[in-house]
């Protein structure tokens, strides 16, 4: 199944990408997707512990099970205000 992955802030720079479609096995977790994407972008790998992960408009943790068509967002700590 496929999910869309979007990057925000300087994650766009270190991946050189705003958005990509990732193919994952059925039942894959958000953590597995994160590892799969991070394996391709070494700088993203280095930031794994501080990376925030969302599905749709809600934060989700690594064990969240993804659905086909989910929109996943990966981004660094937020800095509003």
């Amino acid at each position, binding site marked *: 199944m496929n999910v869309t992955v*979007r990057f925000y*802030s300087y994650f766009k720079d270190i991946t050189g990408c705003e958005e990509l479609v990732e193919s994952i096995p059925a039942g894959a977790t958000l953590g597995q997707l994160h590892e799969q994407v991070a394996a391709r972008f070494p700088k993203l790998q280095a930031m794994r512990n501080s990376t925030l992960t969302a599905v749709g408009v809600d934060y989700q943790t690594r064990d969240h099970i993804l659905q086909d068509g989910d929109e996943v967002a990966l*981004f660094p700590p*937020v*800095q*509003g*205000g």
Partner: protein
Amino acid sequence: MRRELTITTDPIEEPALLGKRILSPSMGAAVYFTGVVRANEGPDRIQALNYEAFEKMARHQFELLFDQIEARWPVESIRLVHRIGRVAVNEPSLWVEVIAPHRAGAFAACQFLIDEMKRVVPIWKRPVPHRSEGKRELGPEPPLKTEQGR
């Protein structure tokens, strides 16, 4: 609880916002916070910050925070404006109004909202360096690494 959330590239016009205040006769306290871009944000002097939002999620996360405030404090109304895009030094990037019967709740809710926003609302900022720093403008702007909030 009334809520009014604005995420906009337009300048924040505080007097105009004040002019639209609605405050019922049993309310005794209005607390405001205006967050302003500082010239010495981060290690270098900057001329502006460039704010980026994941807007759909930001709106949702703000609403979740408003829900929490409504459950915890007797607040009549919250208005929040976050400017995005380029915001020059000395200009407001954030404006918050909290109206409540008493000041303790208004202050607590306002501070909670800003603290939590900085933890969960997907908005980021990057410094726009001065032109005199030349070369750095060619590459991507570095992330702003500052632990100390405003």
